[in-house]
C-alpha cells in the first residue's frame, strides 16, 4: 500500500507543473498564437522564484515564502512572454522563430545572471514547503494519505487553475472570444472583438502560468535551480497537442506523461519494475513516441485552432 501511495505522490509532483504549463499553452494557442517558448517562460519563472527563495530572510519561511516565490515567478513569466506577444502580434513575426529565440535566451540569461549575482550557476534554496498533514482531511483513509499528507500547496493551486481555466475557456464570453480569435480572427474582428487585445491576453496568461509552473517544478523536485527545467516546456507543448487543446485532455495527457516520468525516475524502487530492468530512457522516450503516433493518427482532421501560427493582419482579405 505504501508503495502505491509513494508512487501516486511522485506522479502528482511531476504532473502538477505539466498541467499548469499545458493550460497556459491552451490559452495561448486558442487565441491563435503558437508558443514554443513555454520552456523559456518556465526557466525565467523558476529563475526569479528560486532567486527570491535563495535570498529570502529566515523570518520569511514556510508557505508564505513559497507563495511569494510563485507570485514572483508568475509575474516574471508574464513579462518574458510579453516579448513573444510583441513580436508575434504587433510585429507580425514568425511565431516559431520568436519562440526559439526566447528559448535560447532564457537559460543563457539565467546562467549569466546567476553567476553575476551569486557567483555560481546553481541557485540553491532550503526546501521547507512540504505540508506534513492537513488537519482533519488527512485522517481520511487512502485519499487523505495521497492528497493531504506530504504535499505541496501547488497541488491545490493547480486544481483551482484546472477548474477556473476550463470554465473561462469553455463557458465565459471571454473564452468564446478567445477561441474565435484562434479559429477565424477576421470574423471575430467584424463583430467588434479586438483581436490584438485578446491575443495579448492569451499570450500573457500563458507566460503567467508557465512561470508559475516553472517554480512549482523546481521547488517540488529539486533543491537547487540549474538554468533549466529539463525539457518540461516542450513536454507541455506535446501535452497540449495530445490533450487536443482542451482542459480535460490536457489533464489526462499530463497524468500519462507524469506516470512515465515517475517510472523513469523511481523504477528501481518498485519491485515489479526493477525485475523487468527496462532502461530509464525508454520511459522517458515513450511519451514523445505516443504523441507522435497520436498525431499521425489524428492529424488528418486537424483539431487545433485553425488560425494558429498566422499573424493577424487587419487589412488582409
Amino acid at each position, binding site marked *: 500500500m505504501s508503495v502505491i501511495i509513494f508512487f501516486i505522490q511522485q506522479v502528482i509532483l511531476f504532473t502538477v507543473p505539466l498541467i499548469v504549463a499545458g493550460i497556459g499553452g491552451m490559452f495561448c494557442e486558442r487565441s491563435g498564437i503558437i508558443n514554443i517558448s513555454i520552456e523559456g517562460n518556465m526557466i525565467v519563472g523558476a529563475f526569479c522564484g528560486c532567486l527570491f527563495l535563495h535570498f529570502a530572510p529566515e523570518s520569511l519561511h514556510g508557505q508564505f515564502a513559497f507563495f511569494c516565490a510563485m507570485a514572483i515567478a508568475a509575474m516574471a513569466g508574464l513579462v518574458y512572454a510579453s516579448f513573444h506577444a510583441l*513580436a508575434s502580434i504587433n510585429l507580425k513575426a514568425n511565431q516559431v522563430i*520568436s519562440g*526559439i*529565440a526566447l528559448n*535560447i535566451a532564457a537559460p*543563457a540569461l539565467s546562467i549569466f545572471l546567476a553567476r553575476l549575482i551569486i557567483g555560481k550557476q546553481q541557485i540553491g534554496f532550503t526546501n521547507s514547503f512540504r505540508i506534513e498533514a492537513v488537519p482533519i482531511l488527512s485522517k481520511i483513509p487512502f485519499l487523505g494519505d495521497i492528497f493531504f499528507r506530504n504535499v505541496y500547496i501547488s497541488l491545490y493551486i493547480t486544481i483551482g487553475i484546472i477548474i477556473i481555466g476550463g470554465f473561462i475557456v469553455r463557458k465565459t464570453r471571454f473564452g468564446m472570444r478567445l477561441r474565435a480569435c484562434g479559429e477565424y480572427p477576421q470574423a471575430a474582428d467584424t463583430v467588434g472583438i479586438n483581436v490584438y487585445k485578446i491575443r495579448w491576453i492569451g499570450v500573457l496568461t500563458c507566460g503567467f502560468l508557465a512561470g508559475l509552473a516553472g517554480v512549482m517544478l523546481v521547488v517540488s523536485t529539486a533543491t537547487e535551480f540549474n538554468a533549466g527545467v529539463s525539457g518540461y516546456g516542450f513536454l507541455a507543448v506535446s501535452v497540449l497537442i495530445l490533450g487536443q487543446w482542451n482542459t480535460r485532455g490536457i489533464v489526462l495527457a499530463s497524468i500519462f506523461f507524469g506516470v512515465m516520468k515517475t517510472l523513469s525516475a523511481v523504477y528501481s524502487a518498485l519491485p515489479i519494475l526493477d525485475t523487468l530492468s527496462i532502461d530509464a530512457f525508454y520511459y522517458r522516450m515513450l511519451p514523445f513516441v505516443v504523441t*507522435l503516433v497520436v*498525431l499521425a493518427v489524428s*492529424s488528418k482532421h*486537424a483539431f487545433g485552432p485553425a488560425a494558429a501560427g498566422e499573424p493577424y493582419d487587419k487589412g488582409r482579405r
Partner: protein
Amino acid sequence: MEGKNNKGHFEKFLISPITISLLATVISVLIGLVLGGIILAVCNMEQLIPGLGTIMTGGIRLTGGVKAMARFCYYAMPLIMCGLSLGFAFKTGTLNIGASGQYWVGAFAAIIVASAGYNTFGSFTWVIAVLAAAVAGAVWALIPGILNAYRNVNIIISGIMMNYIGTYMVSILIKNVKLVYEADQSRTLSIPEGTILPKLGLDKLLPSSGAGANAGILIAIALGCVMYFIVNKTILGYELKTCGFNREAARYAGISEKRSVVLSMVIAGALAGVGGALVYLSSTGNRLPITDTVSGIGFTGIAVALLGMMNPLGIILAGFFVSYLNVGGANLQMFGFSSEIVEVILAVIIFSCAFAPKIKDGYYTMINKLFQEKEVEHTQEQIKGVKK
C-alpha cells in the same frame, strides 16, 4: 507607372531585394550587439570595452591568432552544416526544427561506423562514416517529412518530438552497443586514431591543441556550394522553391508537393547528420555522452540560417560569423563575464530576424516616400518649365 522605369541606378540599388535583406540582417546583428553591450554595461561598466572588444575580435588577440583561428574553423563546421540544413528546408517552406536530433543521430552513426569499420576500410573509414551519418540524419528527418506530407502532422511539433526521441534513443544505444560504450564515464569510447578526418596540412597552417582545423571545414564549405547550385540552378531546386512559395500553386503546376516536402527534409536531415559526423570525427577526444538534454546546435543553426538569409553561400559566411562570436565569447571569462552572453546576443539576433519582414516593410515605404516626394518635385519643376 512610368516613373518606375526611370528610376536611377542608386534608387534601384536601394530597393533591390538583396540590399533590403542585407540591411535587415545587419540591423538585426546591430540590435543584438547593442543589447549585449547594454547588458554587459549594466553588469560591469568598467569591463565593458574589453568585454565587447573580446567578442568582436574573436579572442584573436588573447589566445594567439593562429590558435583562435583553428578553433574558429572547428566551431564553424557544425554551425554551417546545421545552418545549411535549416536554410534548405526553409526553401520548401518547412522549418526543420529537428536538426538537433538529426545532428545527434548522425554523430552516433559516424562513431559506430568509425569504430566498427576501421579494420575493414582502413584509412577510408571516415568517408564511410560521414556517409553513414548522412543516411542516419536523413532517416531521422524522413519521419517528420512523411508524417507532414501524408498525415498532415505539423512538422515543427514532430521535429521537437524527434529531437527528444533521437537523443534518448542514442543514449539507449550507447549503453547497449558494447563496441563503443565506456561505462565508467557514461559516454562513447574514443574513435580509432586512423578514422579522424584528414588534416590536409591545415593543422600545420593553423596549429592548435585538441580539435582544430581539418578537412571537415572544407567539406562544409563544399557542401554549401553544392547546395547553392542545387537551389539555384537545378529543376529540383526550382520545384522545391515553388513549393515553398505556394504549395497549391506548385500542385497546380504539376509538381508533387508531397514528394518535395519529403525530399527537402531528407536532404536537410542528411546535412545536419554530416554536421554531427564532422564534429565527432575531428578528434579522439570528442565522445558522445549519454544525456537527456537535447543539443542546442539545431537552434543555433536557425540563427545561422536566418543571418545567411537562407542563401547557402550566405549561410557559410554566417556560420563563420557566429563561430567567431563563440570563440570570442569563450574568452570573456577573463573579464568576469560568463560566455553565455554570446548566446543572449544570438537570441536577440534571431528575435530581431523574426520580425525582419516588418523592418523590410518600413524601409521600403520609407524609401518609396523619399523618392516619391522627389518625383513629385521633379514633375512640378518640369510642368513649370513647360509653362515658361
